[in-house]
């Protein structure tokens, strides 16, 4: 299922972002490797605090500094490393080629300007158009994202919009410059379920219309299943599994992915208890050694998982896993301890 490398739009290699707080260094992202292909939707999923949003901010270079700092890694977009671009060059890319929408539409709009002003500004930041043309374009985009009577609503203030409508305004702002990549940071989390479905539908439709790639950040596996072509599962600053949506939902390899999928209630399944992942996400100031998932893992191999960080293993084409179960070290450990594990075996709860 993997596509040729020339189809890659954005490639993140070894990204590392720390936050230097008074309590200590929060090692939010340790090593993230993702590639985003042209016009695909990539899901980025994980628990709260796993570093999904920080990854997004790191891509755009807008990690709040201080206390945050991107320490290492490459963010290659159109052959250039965004981390080495000057501030002004980076500003030309933000909002223009890579746009972002945020979780909370209630606070992501400036309360003292009309939505028309804000969309127009997004346009005028990157295109040489007059104020009038920008406003006309704003109205066009607003009706495109499904805001009724856009020519009147354009002069309204954000407080005059409902949550769903505000998220549409945010999407309109993001789309205003025809970005090649849209980073959607939990775009539907703060909305109620029916509005959620509408917003996701809108994102899907516009991504097809604009031939745009999307990085969809969420912790909702249902949303991922609905929207994405590929999915990357994040845990405590690492990508632990990355692959095609069908493969991952059918046969997840990483124990964490299995846990996540096992925790989804399924209306078609027989009544049985949902699996849980025991414990909680670790404190990232003092994260567990090596594989950060090992204290919560059912397949924990003592003396290996807490000592050596597993490398990324391509278990099948286009399917990467970072887990010792599939590594050479892991095999050696299992042989030594007389245990055997069938690769890719799906735990009972998932089926």
């Amino acid at each position, binding site marked *: 299922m993997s596509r040729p490398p020339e189809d890659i739009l954005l490639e993140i290699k070894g990204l590392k972002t720390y936050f230097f707080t008074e309590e200590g260094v929060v090692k939010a992202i340790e090593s993230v490797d993702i590639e985003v292909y042209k016009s695909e939707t990539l899901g980025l999923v994980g628990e709260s605090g796993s570093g999904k949003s920080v990854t997004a*901010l790191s891509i*755009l270079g*807008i990690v*709040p500094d*201080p206390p945050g700092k991107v320490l290492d890694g490459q963010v290659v977009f159109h052959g250039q490393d965004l981390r080495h671009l000057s*501030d*002004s060059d*980076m*500003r*030309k*890319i*933000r*909002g*223009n080629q890579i*746009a*972002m*929408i*945020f*979780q*909370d539409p209630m*606070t*992501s*709009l*400036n*309360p*003292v*300007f*009309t939505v028309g002003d804000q969309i127009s*500004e*997004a346009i005028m*930041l*990157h295109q040489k158009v007059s104020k009038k043309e920008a406003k006309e374009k704003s109205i066009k985009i607003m009706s495109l994202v499904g805001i009724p009577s856009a020519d*009147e*609503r*354009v*002069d*309204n*203030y954000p*407080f*005059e919009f409902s949550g769903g409508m505000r998220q549409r305004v*945010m999407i309109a*702002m993001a789309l205003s410059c025809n970005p090649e990549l849209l*980073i959607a940071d939990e775009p539907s989390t703060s909305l109620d379920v029916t509005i959620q479905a509408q917003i996701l539908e809108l994102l899907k439709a516009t991504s097809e219309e604009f031939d745009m790639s999307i990085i969809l950040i969420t912790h909702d596996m249902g949303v991922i299943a609905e929207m994405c072509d590929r999915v990357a599962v994040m845990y405590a600053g690492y990508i632990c599994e990355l692959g095609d949506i069908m493969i991952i939902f059918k046969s997840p390899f990483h124990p964490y992915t299995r846990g996540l999928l096992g925790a989804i209630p399924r209306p078609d399944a027989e009544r049985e208890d949902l699996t849980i992942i025991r414990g909680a996400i670790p404190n990232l100031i003092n994260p567990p050694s090596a594989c950060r998932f090992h204290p919560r893992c059912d397949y924990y191999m003592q003396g290996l998982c807490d000592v050596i960080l597993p490398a990324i293993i391509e278990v099948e084409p286009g399917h990467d896993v970072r887990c010792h179960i599939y590594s050479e070290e892991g095999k050696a450990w299992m042989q030594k301890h007389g245990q055997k594990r069938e690769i890719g075996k799906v735990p009972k709860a998932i089926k």
Partner: protein
Amino acid sequence: MATIENIETDEFILDEKTLREIETMKGANQWSIVWRRIKKDKMGMLGLYIVTFLILMAFVSWILLQLDEWLTHAGLLYGDPNLISSLNNLYVELWIPGVSKSNPIVLFNHPTYQFADQVKLPPSFIHPFGTDANGQDMLSRVFFGATNSLALGFIGQMTTVIIGTVLGSIAGFYGGIIDDILQRVIELLYSMPQFILMIFIIVLFEDIQVPGGKYAVVVIFFALIGWGGTALIIRSNFFSLKEQDFVEAERALGASDMRIIFKHILPNSLAPLIIIVTLGIAGTIFLFAALAFFGFGDATIVSWGDDLNKWQDQLLEYPWMPMFPALFIFFTVLGFNLFGDSLRDALDPRLKD
């Protein structure tokens, strides 16, 4: 029992609130919304009337003085050159028709003109506000003093607010070392009594010749040491505002720091700024008046503050002398405060009616 027939029809008439909501939905212009809110506020309107009246007065008196000067230069003035003579008859005939031109009743004369035989007169028909110990008509003093009083307060306050806003915004937005330095400077400034510091500086620079007279020095140094309060308020405002999601969203759109600071966050701080300016104008007028009292003003300038301080020891004997300038200072303060309060409420789109 309620049936379709006996429901009172006026239940279906939209109340004012709903009508307003509909108007808002129609995308009424921001300033028309602001204006509507101010109009609803009776005290705000009173403030607006007072402020408008005072500004008009200041403007008209300034025009008259300029005209007088120009006419004098052009040699077009007839009669007593110290009166705004060319205009006298106009006023007299306008206000008191039928008074003979050989003995005109002067409503406004040049503020520095002294009626040698009309010293310390109580308010009368000829001198509605009385005359002072130098025989100057108090009405004219007060009328022509408006220009300087308001202009000094306004210019002084605006300079401090602009300096304070720029420094406070940058410190609040970036935080860290910039903020630390700013705070220490403000503490340094505030550790000395402002008034004494002003006097000290004015004495130090007494001999400096600046275009604009002594008050130019006063205004410049007032701006240089007085910005701390504004800076602190704006800074703390920025501390909470910069954490808001729209700042991050704006960054993700590719806006520069300066754009985010001055175009996006600052308008959110408009409410405190308006309060600082309106309260500050009154306060600055007071400060400059007090400086004048201690001999650090400019005796050649006509202003309410100078007059008030000149005559305040006459309060018991000749109450009209200090009273009228004081009254106008009082109305200035009152007007600016009432209007500022109302404008603050009206400008804040987060307050719904």
